[in-house]
């Protein structure tokens, strides 16, 4: 900083004048000297129109990142980037003003001894303020799912999925920045925070499995609930829409299943129902994309739908969003999208916006209440936006 100030000072002492007047200008004073160095800060509380786009950056897998995006600002939508290297996961805490990335590093980029770590980033500066190294080099690497890295214990702790391919969950104390425990969980995947201090995973036989944690992050009790899904015929996408403590899952065929996670044991809600059908399917309308279901603050569900639904189409993206009222179990609206969309999110604004991240990296904004297309942000934030998360 000092050396810059010196250089700039020297430059102007020798070379500049702040009073020189160009001939014939209508502006008697020149533009003012601008202060350097200067680094932008973000508001400590991000506006409700801001989202985080996970940029998977598949063409350079080591260089993933999270784009902080103001969906209300088409002129300057990108507010900053946060490193998210190699199949990273992320979390954010508005209360603490912190973002957490779970990443993997090698000292020679692609070689050497592996280090997995959680980095704690300040939401106002996007600077790292701490790190928690995860032992064992076992953090699960997948195309990014939100439910591989989740809060529990009122947001004080994080749960991280491991896959070696042995499956387990690491419990981390984010506040005291230390690893608490590891819970082996063979046969079960994904982490859905459950009750005050615990989580639920989905298991390969179609059951779910809920675990409560003690004060040390060890398992205190557990309970299996059988036959929650039929993975062969009616598999649920792993990423649900969260409405309060209820996780709304959608199946490959468009059936919606709620799971109440408010107690110590997850409770499937009775009455699975369909997002509905429509003409024009080739062969039929089904959910398709990477993040295919999301919810607004009022609890309405939004499902990304493709008319080209068939076995194997479930990651192909969609061209419409179907809005569903899970209380009345009816579809309330169909929203036609501007392009093949991969992930959808809803902003926290009073009048929520539907954010559509497209396969061509364009991000579009729709009025979630009316379905009207509001604006496009263009491909201005990420190379491969695959998740739209609220901070």
């Amino acid at each position, binding site marked *: 900083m000092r050396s810059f100030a010196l250089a700039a000072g020297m430059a102007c002492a020798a070379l500049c004048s702040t009073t020189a007047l160009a001939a014939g200008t209508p502006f008697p004073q020149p533009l003012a000297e601008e202060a350097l160095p200067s680094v932008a800060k973000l508001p400590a509380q991000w506006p409700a129109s801001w989202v985080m786009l996970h940029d*998977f950056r*598949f*063409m*350079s*897998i*080591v260089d993933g990142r999270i784009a902080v995006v103001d969906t209300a600002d088409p002129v300057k939508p990108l507010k900053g980037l946060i490193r998210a290297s*190699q*199949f990273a996961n992320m979390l954010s805490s508005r209360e603490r003003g912190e973002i957490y990335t779970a990443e*993997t590093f*090698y000292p020679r980029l*692609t070689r050497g001894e592996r280090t997995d770590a959680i980095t704690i980033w300040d939401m106002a500066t996007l600077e790292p303020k701490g790190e928690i190294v995860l032992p064992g080099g076992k953090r*699960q*690497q*997948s*195309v990014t*799912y939100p439910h591989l890295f989740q809060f529990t214990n009122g947001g004080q702790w994080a749960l991280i999925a491991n*896959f070696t*391919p042995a499956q387990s969950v690491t419990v981390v104390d984010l506040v005291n920045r230390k690893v608490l*425990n590891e819970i*082996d969980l*063979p*046969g*079960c*995947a*994904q982490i859905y925070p459950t009750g005050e201090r615990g989580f639920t*995973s*989905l*298991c*390969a*036989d*179609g*059951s779910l*499995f809920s675990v409560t944690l003690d004060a040390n992050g060890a*398992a205190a009790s557990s309970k*299996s609930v059988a036959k929650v899904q039929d*993975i*062969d015929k009616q598999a*649920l*996408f792993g990423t649900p829409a969260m409405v309060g403590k209820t996780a709304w899952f959608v199946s490959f065929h468009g059936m919606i299943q709620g799971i109440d996670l408010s107690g110590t044991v997850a409770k499937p809600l009775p009455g699975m129902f369909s997002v509905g059908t429509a003409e024009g399917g080739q062969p039929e309308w089904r959910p*398709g*994309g990477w993040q295919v279901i999301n919810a607004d603050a009022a609890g309405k569900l939004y499902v990304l739908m*493709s008319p080209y639904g*068939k*076995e*194997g*189409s*479930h*990651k*192909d*993206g969609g*061209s419409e969003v179907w809005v569903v009222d899970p209380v009345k179990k009816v579809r309330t609206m169909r929203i036609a999208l501007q*392009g*093949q969309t*991969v992930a959808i999110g809803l902003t926290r604004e009073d009048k929520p916006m539907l954010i559509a991240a497209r*396969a*061509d*990296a364009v991000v579009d904004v729709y009025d979630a209440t009316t379905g009207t297309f509001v604006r496009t942000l263009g491909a201005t934030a990420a*190379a*491969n936006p*695959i998740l739209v998360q609220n901070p």
Partner: protein
Amino acid sequence: MRFDKLTEKFARGVARGTSRRSLLALLGAGMTGAAAFPVLPVARAASGGGEGGHGAHPGGAARPPMTSGLEQDPGDQSSCDYWRYCAIDGFLCSCCGGSVNTCPPGTEMSPITWIGTCTNPADGRAYVISYNDCCGTSSCGQCLCNRNEGDRPQVRPQSNNDYNWCLGSQSSVYNCSVAAVIGVALEQPK
């Protein structure tokens, strides 16, 4: 803490899995797992899938066909439509310095694999295909291929292609994926 009871139940559960991939059940959850392949629907755009991208997997840039030369193993090994790729997801090693069953030089083949069953259109046989990831060099970036027929959520690792399978290798950095014949399936695919 380990939920051994669950493991036992899980093993039974897997044994009731999907027909095509139920074969894997015998290997147990700890030995198999999902495809190695950092899939991406998103990636379709990168390969120029554009509007026609629905359902279609990306074929990559226009290239001359890459054939085995064997009548019994037909098709273009740089194309996502090639028969062995029925359950692959990632960059095709055929376009990356390797081949349909060989990793590019400088990478390491993942020792643990996901296995699928694909039907060879020439001889009508269902072959057991081992999908191995090649690891230790960053994204090849060529011939991205994403086929999800039979793919199931991560809850069933052996049927899910979103995992990075560079696990037993020295480095977990993903480069590309191969599809090797390791035998003929006892049961015909449906």
